């Protein structure tokens, strides 16, 4: 097994609020990890520390064997160019899609390869076609984001992130802003990526989806990992009261009954 991402003792403090209190996770290649936790438990902050949308207060991020930042005199210094390079290898999908409204679907997907990776025209075009086809939206290439449904927009956002051909993908509540009838198509797309072996960290409130897609589930509580394990271990046989209470609050989710043998 190769470790794609190693999150080591990450702390994040906003003002006098410590949101992450020492998080350690190793993510193996092709692993799909689902992160669960109550609102405010630090799920988004954790994802955002991985690609340095937020700079961790302390701790280390190691991506594909390379430690981010230089340690000098006990302080870690991050340089913008290094962080930008890191971000090209970490794909992020947002709750509100954040597509570029002034670009067509195809231009949205080509933007990263073109502007950031400086790919030539043929390569940009190849990637746009490939990843738009992958999310089933090749036929919408020339449309603008405002002409698409929410579910389609989110699939374009996924294609945009994939076009960078990242080492790992981060999803922060990718379906929370969608009408219920549009959630399925996005989850289906994410599921396909998981099946193809993409390495992923997924924050979601869809427990049924978590159960089917995850190799491992982390339960976050007040900035710490309270419990982790296989979907069955965490979602069906939780050990911690915090996890049990959280699951009770999601009553509509029907898990397989615990086996009594």
């Amino acid at each position, binding site marked *: 097994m190769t470790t794609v991402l190693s999150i080591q003792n990450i702390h994040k403090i906003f003002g006098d609020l410590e949101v992450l209190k020492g998080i350690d996770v190793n993510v193996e290649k092709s692993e799909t990890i689902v992160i669960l936790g109550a609102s405010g438990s630090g799920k988004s902050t954790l994802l955002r520390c991985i690609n340095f949308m937020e700079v961790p207060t302390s701790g280390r991020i190691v991506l594909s064997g390379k430690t981010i930042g230089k340690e000098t005199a006990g302080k870690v210094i991050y340089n913008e160019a290094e962080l*930008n390079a890191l971000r*090209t290898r970490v794909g992020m999908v947002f709750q509100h899609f954040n597509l570029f409204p002034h670009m067509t679907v195809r231009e949205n997907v080509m933007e990263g390869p073109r*502007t950031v990776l400086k790919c030539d025209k043929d390569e940009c075009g190849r990637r746009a076609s490939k990843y738009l086809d992958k999310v089933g939206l090749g036929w919408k290439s020339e449309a603008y984001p405002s002409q698409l449904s929410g579910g389609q927009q989110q699939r374009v956002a996924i294609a945009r992130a994939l076009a*960078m051909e990242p080492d790992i993908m981060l999803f922060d509540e990718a379906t929370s802003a969608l009408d219920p009838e549009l959630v399925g198509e996005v989850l289906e797309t994410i599921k396909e990526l998981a099946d193809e072996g993409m390495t992923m960290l997924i924050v979601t409130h869809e427990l049924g989806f978590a159960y089917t897609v995850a190799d491992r589930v982390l339960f976050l509580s007040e900035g710490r990992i309270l419990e982790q394990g296989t979907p069955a271990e965490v979602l069906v046989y939780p050990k911690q009261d915090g996890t049990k209470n959280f699951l009770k609050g999601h009553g509509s989710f029907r898990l397989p009954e615990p086996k009594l043998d």
Partner: protein
Amino acid sequence: MDYLWDFQSILNNKQLLLIGLQNTLILAVVCLVLGLAFGAIVGIARYSRNPILYWPSTAFVEVFRNTPVLVQIMWFFFAFPIISPFEINAFTAAALGLTLNTIAFSAEIYRAGIQSIHKGQWEAGKALGMSYTQQMSRVILPQSIRRMIPAFMNRAIELMKMTSLASVIAYGELMYQAKVVSTIEFNPIEMYTTVALIFFAIIFPFTLLVQRYEDKQREKG
């Protein structure tokens, strides 16, 4: 009052007035182009969180927004040459005053335009690995410029009117030429009426254009 209007004296001086009109347009275009270009830089600096960029640009904007343009033009023509080694002619003094003023106002338009873009757009660019400059040039400005266009057009209209202030330092734009002609021909009524009509003829179409554009934007929602 049975004043007999006589526009013959205006036609006789057509050539002088055309030169004036030409100078007016030159002054307006030069100040508009420079003002919008440098305004972008000052506006971006105003938006920056870096104090070395923020404070000087803010001081600049506030000084030029909160003093009369006429004072600025007079200052550059009469005061600036005394305290600096530069010779300054009327055109340069007027252009400096009006350009700096346009920079200050357009900087605010840029800043507000940039601010109106949702922060998710910055984040999307950043998450792709874009530098700040790339986020600004590829994502933020192309979206915000569209929202700025009516404000810029209003600024251009203001600027066109303000060029007449350059007449006080004897720059030969339309207003100054009119003043010269009217003192020679004793026809201030016809002369200044003509000047007003010329300005109106140039500016009114722009005003209509701005209104059309704003209505269209509103329809789009």
